[in-house]
């Protein structure tokens, strides 16, 4: 389901932000690791710019404030689950206030590779309290559209094997040791992430896209839907 202007906050309005000033579009691409989000974001960006829209693309842990700290902390494998959730929330807030809101004010299309939903799904997958993290993230803007690229965990496994060829420590949830090795932990952890995203789907009005289709088909689906926002 899509909605048009004006943008609003979930429940905790950010100080100093006048919703009426936010002229741009906020579009979210969500989905678990390795589902093909970044490919679609890159193609959408090129297409939108070709159509004459100015585009900002952004994604988790890319902010000026906390992005570096998060990657350093992840290298040392030292983050506890709540600490990690809050570090990502810090980064998200920084990008929202310092990148996304200014871009929306300037009339940009903001294309974000993941948003609060992945952040919440990861927290929930790690056993943290759903209501707690939802309230923490309640300062987020409600996007114009949220596309959830959905796949089963077996599809993700295939993509990891064919793509990078190895499992990643964090994508496998190895910090929580969901299984005795990376594969088992990946399967259990990503199953939990997918389940958490599925549960959010209705509540947050996700547009669910079958990510097992070809990248071209997915791109056309996204294009068709995004075109209606303008």
């Amino acid at each position, binding site marked *: 389901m899509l909605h048009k202007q004006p943008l609003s906050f979930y429940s*905790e309005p*950010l*100080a100093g932000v006048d919703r009426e000033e936010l002229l741009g579009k906020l579009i979210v691409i969500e989905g678990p690791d390795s589902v093909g989000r970044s490919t679609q974001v890159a193609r959408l960006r090129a297409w939108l710019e070709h159509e004459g829209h100015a585009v900002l693309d952004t994604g988790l842990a890319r902010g*000026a*404030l*906390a992005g*570096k*700290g998060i990657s*350093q*902390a992840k290298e040392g494998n*030292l*983050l*506890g*689950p*709540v*600490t990690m*959730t*809050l*570090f990502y*929330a*810090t980064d998200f*807030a*920084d990008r929202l*206030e*310092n990148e996304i809101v200014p871009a929306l004010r300037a009339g940009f299309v903001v294309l974000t590779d993941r948003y609060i939903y992945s952040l919440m799904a990861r927290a929930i997958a790690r056993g*943290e*309290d759903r209501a*707690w993290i939802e*309230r*923490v993230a*309640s*300062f987020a803007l409600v996007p114009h559209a949220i596309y959830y690229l959905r796949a089963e965990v077996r599809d993700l496994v295939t993509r990891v094997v064919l793509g990078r060829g190895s499992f990643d420590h964090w994508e496998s949830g190895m910090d929580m040791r969901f299984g005795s090795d990376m594969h088992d932990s990946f399967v259990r952890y990503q199953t939990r992430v997918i389940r958490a995203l599925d549960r959010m789907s209705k509540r947050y009005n996700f547009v669910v896209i079958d990510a097992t289709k070809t990248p071209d088909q997915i791109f056309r689906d996204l294009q068709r839907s995004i075109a209606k926002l303008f």
Partner: protein
Amino acid sequence: MPLLVPNRHRGKLIVVEGIDGSGKSTQLSLLSQWLRSQRIAVAFSEWNSSPLVRETTRRGKKKNMFTPVTFSLIHATDFADRLERYITPLLKAGAVVCADRYAYTAFARDVVRGVSRKWVRNLYKFAVRPNLAFYFRVPLEVAIGRILGGRNAIKYYEAGMDLELSHNVEESFRIFQGRILDEYEAMIQEVGFHVIDATGSIEEQQRHMRSIVTDELGLSLRNGILRASQGDIDAAQAAAVVL
């Protein structure tokens, strides 16, 4: 909404709160020495002490990158790290953990910075509820006199300069600390502070603290808590020298 998670561990958590210059750190240090002298295994924990998040906090402060929300979140991140890696394991081990500032600092300070009371209270819901929380009540002017007398320059964020309350650092500090004081006063009942009159003499305050500790934790301090023998203390001191 239940505030904080009850402490189900063997150890005990004692925290002190109050505005800068209330003398809480001095009192906590005296209290921990007293507990140690009874061979109780005591561990100390300061606010903003996690190396993991320190660099991000420093970057944000240096470049004035913080907003009320990111300021609140980075401190909560730091707190979570401190809790997950330090406080919780120590409580499980049966130690008495003494914390100089706790989540309540954020309840006061972050609200003054502009986040809502409800939001910041939810943010810290994962925290272990202290067994004892002391609040050092002091009039603003007394605290400011102690600070200005004893220290060099007041730092930008400490003075709440980011709130643009005043161009004058000292004036900004005064207004900022005054508002924090109001927030502390308003949460006394809600969070169950034991109020210590911080205008009294150091000895009086310490006597008051000790009597509250004895009344509230007396029995549990005799049983269940991790204790140290003279051999443990000597060994720990020797190890600390080597490090």
